[in-house]
């Protein structure tokens, strides 16, 4: 049987049958049931017969579904377990915070004033950006929208509507200062050396 179902042969050869074809195959090729091929636009591209159409159709549909499933697998596998910032940690020893200093420790600022040591949460109450202590100007400034806070955490200016949150500091048996970010304390909270 003739297994070459591609229909471009007579176009490529200008209607002259390819030499490999027998007379019988040539007659089969120009019989009316094949004539729909001639209704297709004439050009240099491939024209599909039924088998070719089904083959390419199946192939492209499977390729699409494989791509779709690959996307699902990619999304599924992208949910890793991030290492979170600890909410309770050792901020340091007393000597690391000399009087008048403002020191960043992980997600908090540790401040030492004349009454003792306290800690401020290091994320802006406006939209949660991390901010900096500007030593020359003596205030905290948020890089996102420019909110400013005093050393004590009081609001100076900016879109933030609240002062900075004070968080709990404790000392353990080894005199290490432990910060607990989740525990809020009032503004007058101070940790003293005694």
């Amino acid at each position: 049987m003739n297994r070459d179902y591609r229909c471009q042969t007579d176009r490529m050869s200008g209607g002259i049958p390819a030499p490999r074809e027998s007379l019988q195959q040539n007659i089969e090729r120009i019989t009316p049931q094949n004539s729909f091929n001639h209704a297709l636009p004439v050009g240099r591209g491939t024209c599909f017969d039924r088998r070719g159409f089904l083959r390419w159709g199946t192939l492209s549909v499977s390729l699409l579904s494989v791509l779709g499933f690959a996307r699902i697998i990619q999304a599924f596998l992208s949910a890793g377990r991030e290492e979170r910032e600890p909410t309770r940690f050792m901020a340091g020893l007393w000597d690391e915070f000399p009087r008048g200093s403002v020191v960043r420790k992980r997600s908090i600022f540790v401040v030492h004033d004349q009454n003792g040591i306290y800690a401020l949460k290091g994320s802006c109450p406006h939209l949660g950006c991390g901010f900096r202590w500007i030593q020359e100007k003596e205030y905290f400034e948020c890089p996102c929208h420019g909110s400013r806070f005093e050393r004590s955490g009081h609001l100076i200016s900016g879109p933030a509507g609240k002062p900075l949150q004070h968080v709990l500091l404790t000392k353990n048996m080894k005199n290490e200062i432990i910060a607990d970010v989740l525990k809020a304390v009032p503004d007058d909270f101070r940790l003293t050396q005694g």
Partner: protein
Amino acid sequence: MEVSNIFRFRKKDHSGIAAFLLHLHPPLISRERIRLTFTFCMGGLSFYFFLVLLVTGILLMFYYRPGDGSPYLSVREISELVPYGNLIRNLHYWGGQGMVILILFHMIRVVLTGSYQGARQWIWVVGMVMLALAVIMDFSGYLLRFDRETFWAGFVALGVVKEIPYLGEALHRVLTGTSTYGQGSIQRIYLWHCVVLPIAVVCFMIYHFWKVSKLGWAGRAL
């Protein structure tokens, strides 16, 4: 029919792995063999379900934690936090249930057409072993969820194993690694479910498919 012309490979004597592969994937398939009502395709469909279970199972292994943390918590993470996690988990769950049901229907078909007889008897025996393995895998997967319901299911089931005379205690120890069923047993259940039993099933499957293909389906040569 000029068989020797069609099966071109007949001219060379194929043996070993080549003959095996040609049985699994022959170049020609009879029209009769692919007719749907011939076998209702249920063996093939259960194999397809097995492939789905393999893919989704490997995906679930990326997140499941059988260890000392809570296995149930990692299951909750998969279905509630991981993107498409619920889809993958449900595909795995329903694929497992579907595979057991399909295998049962497949075996009913084999009984009704009498295809378990004669030279095919070992296909049938291996098939029964695979049914048992499929049920065990289904149940052990259920145990991996390790919520309150499945904890008691496992406690009862492995308690029954323990009651087998003479062998029970030792078998329980081998299966779970613990003397009483608990969270410590999940590590072992996990490995049985994900590694040992699937490999065993694949080995049996290879024999099953090869023999089916070699003997022809339901008394007819391919």
